[in-house]
């Protein structure tokens, strides 16, 4: 990992954000407005009787899952296609290929910071006290970042060889949305269903947000053992393939 690679990653990640901001009239406002609209929509849908009530607890329960999972989906759908998206410059000059998914994951993480602030403000505004326990959210965030990076590495390493996989990415994102326990509490499901749903490492992450923000408990790295393992396994596998095929990708991508 050279200094030049790090500078390249940093410049490109910030550039993506900047381009994003300059590509619409409202620009940077959208980073807040988009999660805000989603929050508003969920609030309307689940408190106005459309679904038969549920109250603010249920809205917060939803938000603690929805906003973080949107971060993951954005990271995977761009990071997983990172080499295909950058095939122009990959064919013109040599770059270590892990750089490209990393850039997208960093960009999306910076964007998520806006949604996170919004989430914290909403939780606080709806009557949950701010406490030093919130600092343990750090573990949840790092764990989710690791998972996002790992899954992006793995997908980006195979999509150039097997383009069919990029068709699967939207379905996988949708699957994450439905199986991470955003709309329902996993713990209320039958045991056997729980066992299957818990194969999805993001279940632990979503529970982590709720534990800290809604249930007033501290998050601890040990609670995410499976997610850590899953993330590291994907990251290592993806990085090994990316390294091994480093100089073969430009052939498939032309």
């Amino acid at each position, binding site marked *: 990992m050279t200094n030049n690679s790090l*500078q390249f990653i940093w410049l490109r990640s910030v550039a993506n954000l900047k381009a994003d901001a300059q590509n619409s009239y409202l620009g940077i406002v959208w980073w807040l407005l988009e999660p805000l609209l989603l929050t508003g929509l969920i609030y309307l849908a689940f408190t106005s009787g459309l679904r038969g009530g549920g109250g603010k607890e249920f809205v917060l329960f939803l938000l603690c899952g929805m906003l973080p999972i949107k971060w993951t989906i954005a990271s995977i759908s761009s990071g997983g296609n990172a080499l295909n998206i950058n095939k*122009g*410059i*990959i064919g*013109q*000059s*040599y770059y270590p290929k892990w750089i490209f998914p990393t850039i997208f994951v960093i960009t999306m993480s910076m964007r998520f910071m806006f949604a996170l602030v919004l989430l914290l403000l909403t939780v606080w505004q709806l009557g949950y006290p701010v406490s030093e326990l919130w600092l343990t959210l750090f573990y949840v965030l790092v764990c989710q970042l690791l998972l996002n990076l790992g899954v992006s590495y793995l997908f980006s390493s195979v999509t150039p060889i097997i383009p069919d996989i990029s068709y699967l990415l939207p379905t996988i994102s949708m699957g994450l949305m439905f199986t991470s326990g955003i709309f329902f509490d996993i713990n209320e499901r039958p045991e056997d269903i729980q066992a299957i749903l818990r194969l999805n490492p993001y279940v632990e992450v979503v529970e982590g947000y709720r534990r800290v923000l809604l249930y007033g408990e501290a998050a601890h790295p040990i609670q995410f053992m499976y997610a850590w393992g899953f993330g590291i396994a994907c990251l290592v596998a993806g990085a090994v393939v990316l390294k091994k095929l480093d*100089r073969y990708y430009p*052939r498939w991508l032309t």
Partner: protein
Amino acid sequence: MNQEVLLQFDHVGLAYKRLLKPFAPKSWVLKDISFELYRGEVLGVIGKNGAGKSTLLKLLADIIAPDKGEVIRPKSLNAQMLSLNLGFNPNLSGYDNATMSLVGLGKSIREARECMPAIIEFSGIDELMEYPVKTLSAGEKARLGFSIAMQATPDILLLDEILGVGDKDFRKKSSDALKERVQSNQTAVLVSHQPSVLQQFCNRVLWIENGQVKMLSEAEKVLCAYEKYQANKTQNGGIQQKSVAV
């Protein structure tokens, strides 16, 4: 001439699959290429379409790896293709894109900033540099791309034709700049279809035919043989065509 070997191809071969099927046959674009590149020389590469010239440049630039044989090079050796496709982000300004491209070419952020006045001066689009690149015309984009690419200082410069870009004036300016660069101490590999261009700039010429080295020697010798061969082929082709017509 200085005889320090900068890089060496040792029986290099490379095969592509032309279809995206698991058992599609491989076709060997390069079969057996061996040569040495010396510091300070300009090596020309000639051959018909599909002879593997562009693939050879990509191997030289270390973008792809060969399927057999070996490209022997020092680890720190930096060989760059002169490329106008620098991956511009259309929504960002000329400044931002120039900085990103230069860092992509191996410079630090500070060095990239120091190159900026030269880029602005050469491209002549000072007043447009702060606008998103998508608002630039194709010619203006090419000028910017060329001016950025000329700031790169690789150990080996790889060129696919010496071509100017942009409008008439800038085309002359850019091809003059390239010529000047190639005629300096720069080690370069130049691919061209025109024997006259290779004659003008190259010390030696490598002639590739059917994925193999047909000839590698002083420019004049190789180009003379190449032209003879081409003329012969056209003649034979003509005779064959006639006989078909009869």
